C-alpha cells in the first residue's frame, strides 16, 4: 500500500528487514555447507577452500569410515515411500468417511488429532518400550514406521479435511445419476478430482518422514535412518563428508518437492486452461 505521495509506510521497511533476516538465517548457513562440500581433498571443515573437488562426495559413496550413509539413505527413502503410501490411503479413506457424521465421529477425530500435541520423543520412547514389553525387536520398518505415522496421519487427515471441504458433492451425485456404481464414482470422479490434494498429502508424508528425528530416534532399532545417521555423524565425523551428506539430502528433498508441485500445477492448469 502506498501513501498519497507514493512513499511506503514504515511498516513496509520493518517487515522487509524482518524478511531479509529470515532469508539470511534460512539460506545463509545452507549455502556455506554446500560450498564447503566441494572442499579440496586436503581441506578442512572450515574456510578457506583448499581447492575445489568432488572428493567428499566420493568418500560418501565409498562409505569407508563415515558410517552407513548409503544404507541409511536407502532405508530413509524406503520408509518415506511407505509412510507416504500409508498416509495417503488412510487419510483419503478417513477423510471420505468423516464427510458423513457417524456416532462418535467427533471423538474419533480428536483422538486422531491429539497425537500432534504429544511430545515426539516420548511417543518414540513409548513405542520402543511397548515393543520391548511385547518381546518384539524394534526396527525402522515396524516400530519406526509406527512412530512416524503418529505424526503424518493426523496431518494427512487435516489436509484431506481442507481438500474435501472445497469439494462439491454434486459431482459425485452426477456420477451416480449417470449410472456409475460407487466404485466407478470413486475411481472415475472422486479420486481424479481430489488428485492434487492427494499428491499434497503424499508429499507431506514423504518429507515429514524423510527428516523425522524426534519420534524415530528411540523407535528405529539397530539400523539408522538418514537423519539419525547424520545426527550421529555430527558428533564423530570431522571431515567435509558431513557437508556432502547435507548437499545430497537437500537435493533429494528438492527434487521430490519440485516433482510433486509440478504435477499438481500441471493438473490444475489442465483443468483451468483459459478460454479461447
Amino acid at each position: 500500500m502506498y501513501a498519497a505521495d507514493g512513499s511506503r509506510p514504515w511498516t513496509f521497511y520493518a517487515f522487509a528487514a524482518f524478511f531479509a533476516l529470515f532469508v539470511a538465517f534460512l539460506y545463509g548457513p545452507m549455502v556455506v555447507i554446500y560450498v564447503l562440500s566441494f572442499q579440496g581433498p586436503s581441506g578442512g571443515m572450515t574456510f578457506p577452500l583448499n581447492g575445489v573437488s568432488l572428493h567428499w562426495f566420493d568418500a560418501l559413496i565409498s562409505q569407508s569410515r563415515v558410517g552407513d550413509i548409503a544404507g541409511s539413505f536407502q532405508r530413509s527413502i524406503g520408509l518415506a515411500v511407505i509412510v507416504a503410501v500409508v498416509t495417503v490411503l488412510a487419510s483419503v479413506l478417513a477423510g471420505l468417511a468423516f464427510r458423513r457424521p457417524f456416532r462418535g465421529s467427533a471423538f474419533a477425530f480428536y483422538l486422531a488429532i491429539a497425537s500432534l500435541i504429544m511430545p515426539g520423543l516420548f511417543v518414540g520412547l513409548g513405542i520402543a518400550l511397548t515393543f520391548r514389553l511385547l518381546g518384539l525387536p524394534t526396527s525402522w520398518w515396524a516400530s519406526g514406521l509406527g512412530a512416524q505415522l503418529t505424526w503424518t496421519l493426523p496431518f494427512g487427515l487435516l489436509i484431506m479435511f481442507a481438500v474435501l471441504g472445497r469439494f462439491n458433492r454434486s459431482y459425485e451425485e452426477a456420477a451416480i445419476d449417470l449410472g456409475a456404481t460407487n466404485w466407478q464414482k470413486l475411481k472415475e470422479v472422486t479420486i481424479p478430482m481430489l488428485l492434487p490434494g492427494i499428491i499434497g498429502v503424499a508429499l507431506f508424508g514423504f518429507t515429514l518422514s524423510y527428516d523425522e528425528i524426534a519420534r524415530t530416534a528411540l523407535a528405529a532399532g539397530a539400523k539408522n535412518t538418514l537423519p539419525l545417521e547424520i545426527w550421529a555423524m555430527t558428533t564423530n565425523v570431522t571431515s567435509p563428508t558431513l557437508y556432502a551428506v547435507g548437499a545430497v539430502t537437500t537435493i533429494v528433498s528438492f527434487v521430490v518437492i519440485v516433482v510433486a508441485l509440478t504435477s499438481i500445477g500441471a493438473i490444475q492448469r489442465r483443468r483451468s486452461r483459459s478460454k479461447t
Partner: protein
Amino acid sequence: MTQATGSGALGSGQVEVAGVTKRFGETVAVKELSLTIPHGSYCCLLGPSGCGKTTILRMIAGHENPTTGDIRIGGRSVVGLPQVERGTAMMFQSYALFPHRSVLDNVAFALKVRGIGLPARHNTARELLTKVQLEKFANRLPAELSGGQQQRVALARALITNPRVLLLDEPLSALDEYLRLRMRGELRRVQKELGITFVHVTHTQLEAIAVADTVVVMAQGRIEQAASARDIFVAPRNAYVARFVGGQNVLSGTVESMMNGTAAVASDKGARFAFPVGDLRLVRGSKLYGSIRRDRIAVEKVLPGAKPAGGLNTIVGEVHTLENQGSYVKVTVDLDNGEEFVAHVPDEAFFRSPLDIGDKVEARWSASDIKLLDDGPIAFDAAAAEARAASAD
C-alpha cells in the same frame, strides 16, 4: 437420437408424488405433498429458497428418499430404486461437469460406466454434441467453455441415457440475463422435440411462466397452487401466490354489505372496493382478499388542492417509484399504510400525461377485474361452494 443403452426411454414419464413427507432431522422440508406430472409435460416447481422444491426434485431423482409417502414414475414405485432403473436424469445446478474430462468424455460418461466401448460411446456422444451444436468443442475441457456452452454439455450428458424424465435444478441460474432468456426458450424447444417429461426447479417467476405447461407454486414444503402457467399468472389462488408470482396487487378488507353477487368491502384505510363473489354467502364483517392485475389499473394525477374523485374501486397515494420498462411504465404508489400498490401503465397512456415521483395519484379499476383470493374464511366457504356446485351437477 439413437437408443444407446438397454435402460431408459421405455415406458411413460408420468411422475406421481403421493403424500410425500421429507424430514431432515427436526426440520420438515416437504409436508404430505401430492402432485401428478403428466407424461411429456413441462412442469416448473416454483418457490423461494427453502420451500422444498429442490428436495422434491432430488427425491424423484433418487438422491433423497421420502420419509413417508411414495414416488411413482410411469405408474411404478421408484422409492429405493437406483438411479439407473428410474429412467430419470438430472441436470445439476452449476452443471457439475467433470472438470478433468473432455466435453466428449463428459457426455459419454453414462455409457462408459455401462461398459460400452470407446468408439461406440464416442460416436453416440458426438451425435448428441452435434444436436446441441457443440461438436467443435468435443475435445475441450469444461472450463474452456462459456456458461451457455457448459449448460448445453450438461443437457447432452443428461440426455444420453434417453431418460423419460429430465430433472433440472435451477438450470439457468448460472447464466447471465441474455443467455438465460435464450436458453429457456431452448429448453422448451428441446422438451417439445423429445416429448419427455421435464421437471424444472426455479425461484424465478417469469422463468417458470415462460417455459412451463404446469407451474407448481410452493411455500414451506406445501403446494400453494398447481395450475397452468396462464392461470398462475391471471388467476392466483391465494394472496401468497399473487404476491409471489407478481403481476398482481392484493387487496383486502371486511365485508360491509352483499348485493347481486357483489360484496362491498372496506379496507383498513377506508377505501371501498366491490368484489365479485358469485354465489358465495358471506357474513358482514368477514375478511376478504382479492387480487387485481397490475396492467388493469388506470392511474390519474390528483392536482394539488383538488379532491380525488373517490368512489368504489379507487385508491389514493403518492408515486413512490417510476420504472420505464419500454412498452409500459411501472408506477409504484405508496399507500398511507406503507403498503405498495403497483400499476403497469402502457407507455402511450403514461407519456400523454406523465407523472413524477411524489405526485398524488388516484388508481382505479373495474370491479370485474378483481379475482377473489382463497384466504381467510373464504377457504371454508369456497369448499362449501364447490360441494354445492358438485351436487348441483
